[in-house]
């Protein structure tokens, strides 16, 4: 199938049609304005739910009752991360029923979903719209998937559902605790994961919603993070997740001296630029370096008697400790990464569960990403214009989903603490393999060999002029990396597009090409 390609606002060649659907090329940050109405559903009636008891005997029956048939879009969510047992089970059932050409619309996929390759091979699943990594990433990258993958941010996923870009036929929501009416939460039960925010859009907009739990309790399930009023069927199963893979027992600060050095430089930069001040807010992920940064922030806050108004989660034991110590007033949490995070969310009213609607959705009346002062993110590659890639490895293979990464770029100061090279692969390049986020939104790159500040942040450059921080032009960092590693060859990619990367507003920011196997 020959697709027409056009150059988008970043100069990337992107398709105008994918999987039979028209696509709009990226037009620049804030440029695209939708002129359509939100998607809507047929009106439901209580007459169909007279007793309010929606229990159904098993998942297969529920899927059949929901009208499972060829070509449908089925959604699942990643709040069980690599411990999810449900998604594979759904497609195993569909395969047994001889269903073909389903679209899987997960909020993210993990290595535990590798078995879905079998269901793509036998025709049950046509393609995946969601992050792909590990074996699934390899499969898609090598052009083996029938359709084209579509990668969206957490906010972009909400936007796509709300706008009707993706119409979910059946949403299957894994619930650590639920009642027969369909109310559900992630706070308790053997598969407790904290919150179910990623499933919110699906509960609101899917044609049929199935809640599956291994911890069924009597009505009411409080709090109802997912409201039963959206739910069609409730299924009780013995096991829906592997707890030790859902949340880690404890997240840990990195012990690597090199990564700690990067974390220290990042913290010094924030302190010396005056960003750590009373009432500020920050977001730091669950990676070892990010945890170290949050920990160092805590030290400075204690020392200087500074309080943060809120911290944006992924929460973890270190953030929880800061909340309990009174260093931050609130944790606005998108996902809990360890058991301490789950406990805190259960017990502490200051630990708030949020959804991609409130935090990240771009087609709403604001979201709270721009209210965050400092955000710490990662990247696989950054080019000399600060455009960054989180999706593909430098050899072209799909490596990571977007997660909340694109959405967080709207925060006041976006910092990417990354090593200058990984193994022998330079991170700062002339050109990135894939653009996930435009450089105009990326402010600072912190590496162990120097810090690059986006020239459009003159205020930061001025504030840091008199410090001893190793601030260098980004081109110089690139040269240093190449001097150490050598200049890598271009990856061997075909013309064929295997996946597209959506921007937060639903436009196409880049396309991923097929990797030609060695």
């Amino acid at each position, binding site marked *: 199938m020959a697709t027409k390609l056009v150059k988008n606002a970043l100069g990337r060649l992107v398709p105008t049609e994918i999987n039979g659907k028209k696509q709009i090329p990226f037009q620049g940050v804030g440029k695209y304005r939708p002129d359509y109405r939100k998607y809507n559903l047929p009106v439901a009636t209580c007459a169909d739910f007279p007793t309010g008891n929606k229990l159904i005997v098993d998942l297969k029956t529920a899927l059949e009752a929901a009208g499972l048939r060829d070509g449908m879009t089925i959604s699942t969510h990643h709040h069980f991360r690599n411990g999810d047992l449900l998604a594979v089970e759904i497609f195993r059932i569909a395969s047994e029923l001889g269903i073909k050409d389903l679209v899987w619309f997960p909020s993210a996929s993990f290595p535990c979903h590798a078995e879905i390759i079998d269901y793509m091979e036998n025709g049950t699943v046509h393609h995946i719209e969601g992050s792909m990594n590990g074996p699934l990433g390899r499969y898609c990258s090598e052009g083996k998937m029938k359709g084209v993958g579509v990668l969206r941010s957490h906010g972009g996923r909400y936007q796509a559902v709300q706008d009707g870009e993706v119409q979910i036929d059946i949403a299957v929501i894994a619930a650590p605790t639920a009642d027969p009416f369909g109310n559900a939460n992630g706070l308790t039960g053997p598969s407790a994961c904290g919150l179910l925010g990623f499933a919110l859009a699906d509960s609101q907009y899917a044609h049929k919603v199935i809640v599956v739990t291994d911890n069924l309790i009597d009505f009411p399930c409080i709090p109802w993070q997912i409201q039963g009023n959206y739910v069609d069927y409730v299924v009780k199963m013995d096991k829906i997740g592997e707890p030790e893979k859902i949340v880690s027992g404890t997240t840990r600060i990195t012990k690597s001296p090199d990564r700690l*050095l990067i974390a220290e430089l990042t913290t010094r930069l924030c302190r010396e630029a005056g960003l750590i001040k009373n009432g500020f807010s920050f977001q730091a992920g669950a990676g070892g370096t990010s945890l170290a940064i949050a920990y160092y922030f805590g030290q400075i806050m204690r020392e200087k008697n500074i309080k943060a108004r809120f911290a944006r989660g992924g929460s973890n034991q270190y953030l929880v400790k800061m909340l309990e110590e009174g260093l931050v007033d609130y944790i606005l949490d998108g996902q809990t990464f360890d058991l301490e995070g789950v406990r805190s969310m259960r017990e502490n009213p200051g630990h708030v569960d949020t959804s991609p609607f409130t935090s990240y959705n771009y087609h709403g009346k604001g979201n709270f990403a721009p209210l965050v002062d400092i955000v710490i993110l990662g990247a696989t590659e950054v080019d000399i214009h600060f455009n960054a890639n989180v999706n593909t490895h430098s050899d072209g293979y799909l490596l990571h989903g977007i997660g909340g990464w694109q959405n967080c770029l709207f925060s006041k100061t976006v910092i990417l603490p990354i090593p200058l090279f990984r193994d022998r692969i330079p991170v700062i390049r002339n050109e990135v393999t894939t653009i996930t986020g435009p450089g105009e939104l990326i402010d600072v790159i912190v590496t162990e060999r120097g810090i690059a500040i986006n020239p459009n942040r003159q205020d930061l450059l001025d504030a840091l002029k008199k410090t001893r921080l190793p601030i260098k032009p980004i081109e110089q960092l690139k040269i240093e990396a190449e001097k*150490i590693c*050598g200049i890598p060859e271009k990856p061997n990619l075909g013309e064929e597009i295997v996946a597209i990367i959506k921007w937060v507003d639903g436009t196409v920011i880049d396309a991923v090409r097929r990797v030609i196997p060695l």
Partner: protein
Amino acid sequence: MKRTGAAGNRGPDIRSDCYFEIELTDSGGIQMDIRSKVDRLFGTENRQLIRDMLDFFDIPNAKVILEDSGALSFVMMARIEAAVKKVTDTNKEYLPELIPENRYSTQRDRYRRSRLYLPGNTPKLFINAGLHQSDGIILDLEDSVAPAKKDEARMLVRNALRRNDFYGTERMVRINQHSRGLKDLEFVVPQHVNLILMPKCESADQLVAADLKIQGILTSHQLDYPVYLMPIIESAKGIMNAYSIACASENVVALAIGLEDYTADLGIQRTPEGKETFFARNVIVNAARAAGIQAIDSVFSDVADQDGLRTVVKESKSLGFEGMGCIHPRQVPIIHETFAPGDSEIEKAKKIVTAFYEAEEKGLGVVALGSKMIDPPVVKRAQKTISLAIDAGKLAKNWSKSYGN
């Protein structure tokens, strides 16, 4: 000679290194089996390197296996050369570029507060070592390298001294004992190394022999830069000969003590309090001072115990040591911080140095502070205190401008 040889490291935990295996064959040219995690990005370059090197070593026919975990090219060169040298008898060396950044010499009396040990056959630890700002780094060929890996480590360390940027730290190598150690020198001395650590020194002769060998190597390569010596004393006998060791050569700039081996030699346990090594440490400080060189303390081996390290450094400083070994970069800032002069020390030093400058300005031969005469060594010590304080960030570089205002 054998027909097959291998060098380097492989396995799931190996990074920035590679494993290279060669089997000489009688025909068929060079056959390569390459497994590299960066093959799509550096595959062409790596294949070319293998061909160039086999050509350089006059090997027309061989089967080779490369398992690459992202090795930088100087590492890969060392691995290929080491494997090749197991199957051919050659004195040729395949050398990476000696980068201009590494052509520096150090001063006899520079700070040697911290020296970071890097196991000589673990290249991933070399790459960022200089970023952690220890005063020196030690590429170790001795105890941290397994006996079977000693030969290949020499080539790796040699290449690292040439090609890996250590960002201005003093570049040291700890050689092996006896004849192997003297052979080690041939590999490292021509690479602009700054200092050689000699382990388990027991007599001045060992230093004299090493110094002679070093000077010979420099002369034969037509090189002219200082290569200092730091003997490590690790036995009862060494302690008894400490002063003569310290005086063995004008290139000896520091005397270090190794307490693990010393306590083993005495047949006693090393304790955290260190009473059992009190005498030995005093001897080292005394011998070093008498010879006009630096006294350097042993390492503190519990990386996780930062408070313990701080206590040990404080005591070390109070005994008269000027530096310590580090086995982890995280120890460096604590060592620097603790060896840095205290506030009252700095204040006193500022007064003395100011008085010295005033006396100089007035053309006075004698420095006085109030009614007290100040001797030249006291001035010298005060100047050292000031520069240490500046280095530790406890004093501004231009402190004298605002002083007394």
